[in-house]
Structure formats: structure tokens, C-alpha cells
């Protein structure tokens, strides 16, 4: 039964991905879809950051956790304000969190 779940979930998730990349251009040319496509990356990234930084607990009991990741994000903000390049921002975020966990 687990195998059936694994394989059907795999096929279904693949078809969803393929459907996304196969959206016909006449749909994408609609003004509403254009506005969604403009806002989608912003909403997506903001939500991904939030989940990356605040989510904790385990799969069955997710919860909001405030820990060294938030300090890492704050350090990333400072790096971005100082116009640091992408890789520096990433390393600063990781190093800050790692450093805080060692103390």
C-alpha cells in the first residue's frame, strides 16, 4: 500500500509540474494572469522566507519557532543594505546562525 502511495504521488506531482510548464500562451496573455504572474514571485519568495525562518516542530505538529535563523535573516538584511552580493548574503546568514548556536 505504501508503494501505491509513493508511485501515485510521484506520478501526480510530476503531472502537476508538467501542467505548470505547459500553460498555453493565450492563457498567459490575459491581463489577470499577467498581474498574477507579476505578484507571484514576490508572494512566493516572501512566504518561502517566512517558512524557512519560522517553521519548526515536526511533520505532525508544526509550530512557529524563533531561533538562530531569525538572527541569520537579520544579518542578511544588513548585508543587503550594504549591497553585498548574493553569495555573501547567503554565507553571512548561515555563519551568523551557526555562530549563535555554538554559544
Amino acid at each position, binding site marked *: 500500500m505504501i508503494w501505491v502511495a509513493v508511485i501515485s504521488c510521484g506520478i501526480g506531482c510530476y503531472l502537476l509540474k508538467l501542467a505548470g510548464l505547459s500553460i498555453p500562451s493565450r492563457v498567459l496573455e490575459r491581463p489577470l494572469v499577467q498581474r498574477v504572474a507579476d505578484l507571484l514571485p514576490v*508572494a512566493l519568495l516572501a512566504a518561502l522566507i517566512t517558512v524557512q525562518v519560522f517553521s519548526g516542530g515536526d511533520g505532525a505538529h508544526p509550530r512557529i519557532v524563533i531561533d538562530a535563523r531569525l538572527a541569520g535573516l537579520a544579518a542578511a538584511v544588513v548585508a543587503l543594505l550594504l549591497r553585498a552580493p548574493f553569495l555573501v548574503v547567503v554565507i553571512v546568514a548561515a555563519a551568523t546562525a551557526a555562530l549563535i548556536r555554538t554559544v
Partner: protein
Amino acid sequence: MTPEKTPEKTPEPPPIDPDRRREIVRDSLAVAVATGAYGISFGAIGVSSGLNVAQTCALSLLVFTGASQFALVGVIAAGGTPLVGAASGLLLGVRNALYGLRLAPLLDWRGARRAGAAHLLIDESAAMSVTRETTAEARVGFLTTGVGIFVLWNLATLIGAIAGESIGDPRAYGLDAAVGGAFLALLWPRLDSPTHRATAVIAAAVALALIPLTPAGTPVLAAAVVALGLALRGSGPGGSGAGR
């Protein structure tokens, strides 16, 4: 660099500056390493949830979208039936389809290439390509991130499934904070208008509120719905609506 008249059909995108390519590859690999390492956690959790090593590895190979995989094993670990787990995984996979709204025209792949690339469409590959200006840049970001994570995620899943989390916690190296920092660096230049800033704040607030209430992946899916709602509210810059 030289702007030319675009013909009706563009089989190949204009070439990409080598320095720019190197920069995108480097940035994408950083995200791939930080994300791929989490396969260890998934492998360990999969096995402790009642799946065997082969099933856990098959999930990473076939499903290959983290939130759906965690949802499936989470349901099984909580005593749910495997098919309910598969349904939860599928529901969360819907957001990958939504990324296509932006990525389909940007990546502009057809036929077999599209079919192959589709498997690599996940949060991180979308994030590393969705903000690019050109098709060539988007493809480099997408493929480097997607292939990099696919290789590392599957390798790490196997290691985690066999060895458990004793192998080392990615958090010790701050890898969990690295990905948040990477996504912030991608978002930063896009916070250039009141509409975009309002969208970011609302999406983050919705995601935060849903973290304790819903399975992993749902908060991000909800953020995509937020984008849809804000787009429906009106096109005017004043119509971005900071509330309802």
C-alpha cells in the same frame, strides 16, 4: 548585448554573458548545497515513519518536491493511510503548477526538454529562475539549482535513510538560515513598488499564521492564492489593498 528584431519563432534565446552565467551558477549551487543537505533529515524521518529505505529513496526520486514528501511520510507517521498521505502530497504539489504561470513563458521549453525539465520544478529552482530577466539566465538558474538539488537530495536521502540523523544536523552549519537568506536576496530587488511591498508583507503574514495550523507546503500554497487575490482586487497601484 546587441538588440535585434525578434522573429516570430525564437528557437534559441540570445546568448548569456559568461560572467553572468558563472555568477548564476555559483549562486544556484549555494542554494542547491544548502537545500540538498536536508535530504538527510528526510531520509531519517522517512525510515522512522515506517517506510523502508527503498520506499524513502523512491519518494525522493519520483516525487522530488520536499513539502509533498514530508506530508506523505507525516501522514503515515501519524497513523493515517498511505493514500491519504499521497493525496496530501498531491495537494501541496499544486503550487509547482502555479509557478508555471511565470516560468512557462520565461523558460520557454517545448517537447522532450519541457518534459524532462518539469521534474526539476520545485520551490528552489522556481525561486532561482523566476526573477531572471532573460530566458537564458532563467534556464541557467533553473537547471543548476534543479539538477544540483536532485543529485544532492537523493544522495542525502539515501545517507539519511541508512544512517539516520546521527550523521550530522545541517542546522549546526546554519544551512537552514542560508536558504532564508538566499530567498531574501532574491526578493530584495523586487520590493520596488508599494504593490510589491504590500504583497510581500501580506504573503509573509499569511504564511506565518498558517505555519502552526497546516502541513508544510500549505503556507506557500496559500501565498500563491494571496497573489491571485491581490491581482483580482485591481490593477491600479493604489488598489493593492493592505487588508480585507
